[in-house]
C-alpha cells in the first residue's frame, strides 16, 4: 500500500464508505476531489447523531435542545477560528459556500466602498465565482475589472500583476489554488503588494483549505472564503473569514431573524458580529458536519495531508508525462494535487466517458473557468484532482484507462 511516513491510506480509506463500491464493474477510483470531496463516516455520523439527539433551532430557545444546538454551533465557529488562525471567532461567518461568501463581500463591502473609476484586480486563472460577482459589482458601481495575466506554466506574472495596482485599486481578489491548473498563488506577497496600494485582498480558498495549512494572520488577507463540501464536510455550508474591523463597518447582507438587535417599524438596529451576516435559521446541521470534518482533518494533520498529496502528485505527474499524446496543462513550480491534461485528438468528454466505464471519476469540461481555457487555447480539459484517500494504484488505474482511450481512438 502506498504510504508516506506514518500515513496509513488503507486505514483512512475505511473511513469513507462511498469509496468501497464498483462502478461499471470496476472498483471506484474517485479523482474528482476539486469538484467535491467524499465524506468520512465521522462526518456522516456526526450529522445523524446531531439530528437524532441534539437538534433544535439555535440562539432562540431557553430549552435544553436549543442550548445544546447553540453550543455545538458556536463551538464549531471556534474550531474554524483556530483552523484558520483568525484572531477572533466573530470573524468567522457561516455562509452557503465560497460563492456566497464572495457575493456577500461584493454586495456589502463592495457596494459601500467602490466608486466610478475605481478598479478591482483579479487574475486570469480565476473560477467564474471569483469573476462574475465582481463584474456585477463593476456594473452597479462604475468600477473597472482588471485582469492580471499568467504565464504558460500557469504562474501569476507578478510584474504584470503589480503594474495593474494603482491608487484607484480598491480590491484584489485571487484564488489561493487554481481549480484547473493546481497553481498555488503567493498570497502573502500578493497581500503585501495589495496593501501597499491601499487595496483590500480577498482570497478564494475553495481549493486550498482542504489541502494545505491556511493561516489568515500570516497571509494577512482581509477576506478568505472556502466551502465545506470540498473539505470532506456536507454541502450547503461554507465560511467567510473577514477582519473584524472590516466586517464591523460593512452593512448587512440579508435582512431577517437573528441579524437584528431590535426591530420597530420605524427603525431596526442590527446585531453584532458575526450574527449581523447570518440572517434566518442557518444550515445548523451543515455547520455541525463541517465541524466534524475539521476535526477529521486536524486528526490526520493538514501538513501530513499536504505532504502525502504532494508525493502522489509527483507520482501522477511523472506517470502522465511518460504517456505519449498526453499534455499536462499547468506546470507551476508550486502546485497542488490538481492535474489538467489533454489527450491528443480526443475530446475530454470522450475521455471522461471511457474512463467512467472503467470506474474512474474525473472531471471534464471548462471547470467554470472559460477565460482560462481560452488562455490555453483548449475548449476543455480532463482533470484528475487528488485527495489524501487516493493511492498510487488508483493513479495506475487512471494511466491504464487512458491507454484504453488511446486504443479506442487510434
Amino acid at each position: 500500500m502506498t504510504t508516506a511516513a506514518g500515513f496509513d491510506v488503507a486505514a483512512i480509506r475505511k473511513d469513507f464508505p462511498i469509496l468501497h463500491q464498483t462502478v461499471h464493474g470496476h472498483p471506484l477510483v474517485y479523482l474528482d476531489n476539486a469538484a467535491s470531496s467524499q465524506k468520512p463516516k465521522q462526518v456522516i455520523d456526526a450529522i445523524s447523531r446531531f439530528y437524532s439527539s441534539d437538534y433544535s433551532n439555535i440562539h432562540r430557545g431557553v430549552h435544553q435542545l436549543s442550548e445544546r444546538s447553540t453550543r455545538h454551533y458556536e463551538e464549531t465557529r471556534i474550531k474554524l477560528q483556530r483552523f484558520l488562525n483568525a484572531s477572533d471567532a466573530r470573524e468567522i461567518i457561516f455562509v452557503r459556500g465560497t460563492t456566497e461568501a464572495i457575493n456577500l463581500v461584493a454586495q456589502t463591502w463592495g457596494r459601500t466602498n467602490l466608486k466610478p473609476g475605481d478598479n478591482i484586480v483579479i487574475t486570469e486563472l480565476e473560477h467564474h465565482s471569483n469573476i462574475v460577482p465582481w463584474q456585477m459589482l463593476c456594473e452597479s458601481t462604475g468600477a473597472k475589472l482588471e485582469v492580471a495575466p499568467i504565464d504558460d506554466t500557469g504562474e501569476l506574472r507578478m510584474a504584470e500583476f503589480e503594474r495593474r495596482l494603482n491608487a484607484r485599486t480598491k480590491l484584489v481578489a485571487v484564488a489561493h489554488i487554481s481549480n484547473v491548473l493546481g497553481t498555488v498563488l503567493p498570497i502573502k506577497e500578493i497581500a503585501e503588494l495589495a496593501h501597499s496600494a491601499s487595496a483590500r485582498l480577498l482570497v478564494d480558498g475553495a481549493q486550498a483549505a482542504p489541502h494545505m495549512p491556511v493561516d489568515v494572520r500570516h497571509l494577512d488577507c482581509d477576506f478568505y472564503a472556502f466551502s465545506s463540501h470540498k473539505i470532506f464536510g456536507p454541502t450547503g455550508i461554507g465560511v467567510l473569514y473577514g477582519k473584524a474591523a472590516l466586517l464591523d463597518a460593512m452593512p448587512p447582507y440579508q435582512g431577517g431573524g437573528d441579524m437584528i438587535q431590535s426591530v420597530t417599524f420605524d427603525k431596526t438596529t442590527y446585531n453584532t458580529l458575526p450574527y449581523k451576516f447570518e440572517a434566518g435559521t442557518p444550515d445548523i446541521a451543515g455547520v455541525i458536519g463541517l465541524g466534524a470534518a475539521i476535526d477529521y482533518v486536524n486528526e490526520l494533520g493538514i501538513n501530513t495531508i499536504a505532504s502525502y498529496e504532494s508525493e502522489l502528485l509527483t507520482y501522477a505527474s511523472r506517470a502522465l508525462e511518460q504517456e505519449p499524446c498526453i499534455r499536462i496543462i499547468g506546470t507551476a513550480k508550486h502546485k497542488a494535487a490538481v492535474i489538467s491534461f489533454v489527450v491528443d485528438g480526443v475530446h475530454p468528454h470522450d475521455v471522461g466517458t471511457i474512463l467512467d466505464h472503467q470506474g474512474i471519476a474525473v472531471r471534464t469540461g471548462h471547470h467554470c473557468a472559460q477565460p482560462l481555457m481560452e488562455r490555453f487555447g483548449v475548449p476543455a480539459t480532463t482533470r484528475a484532482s487528488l485527495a489524501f484517500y487516493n493511492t498510487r494504484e488508483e493513479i495506475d488505474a487512471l494511466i491504464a484507462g487512458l491507454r484504453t482511450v488511446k486504443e479506442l481512438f487510434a
Partner: protein
Amino acid sequence: MIDDLYQEVILDHGKRPRNFGPMENPTLHAEGFNPLCGDRLTLELKLDGNIVKDARFKGAGCAISVASASLMTETLKGKTREEAEKLFEKFHQMLTTDAAPGDLGKLTVFSGVKEFPARVKCATLAWHTLRAALHNANEKVSTE
C-alpha cells in the same frame, strides 16, 4: 457497454467528419452551443426551393457531437424541409424516449447514446442547430 456508444461509424465520422468546413452563400445558417462543455457548431444549408441541396458544418466538439453533425449533413441532402423536421423528431425520440426508433437508416448508430444521459446533448446539438436554422434563421441555439 462502451462499444455501444463508440461504434466504428461514430469513431470514423468523429475523426474524419464529412461536409466539414465553410460553404459559399448558404441559404440558411445557425449556431449551436452547448454551455455545459463549451462545444460550438455552425451549420450552413443551401436550399433549392424546398429541398436541401447541401449541408455543411464547422466547429469543435467531442466524437459524438462531431459524428452526429457529420452523419446529419450526409442524411439531409436531398430531403425537403418537412422531411428534415421529421428526422429531427425521430432522432430526438430515439435518444430521449423508450419508443422504438423510426426509420432512421444509418443514424440508428446513435441509439446507444440513450444509455449515456450525460452525452445525449452531444448527439442532439447538431439537430437542435438544424431546427434553429430551419425555423428562426441565423439565430444562436443553446442546448440548455
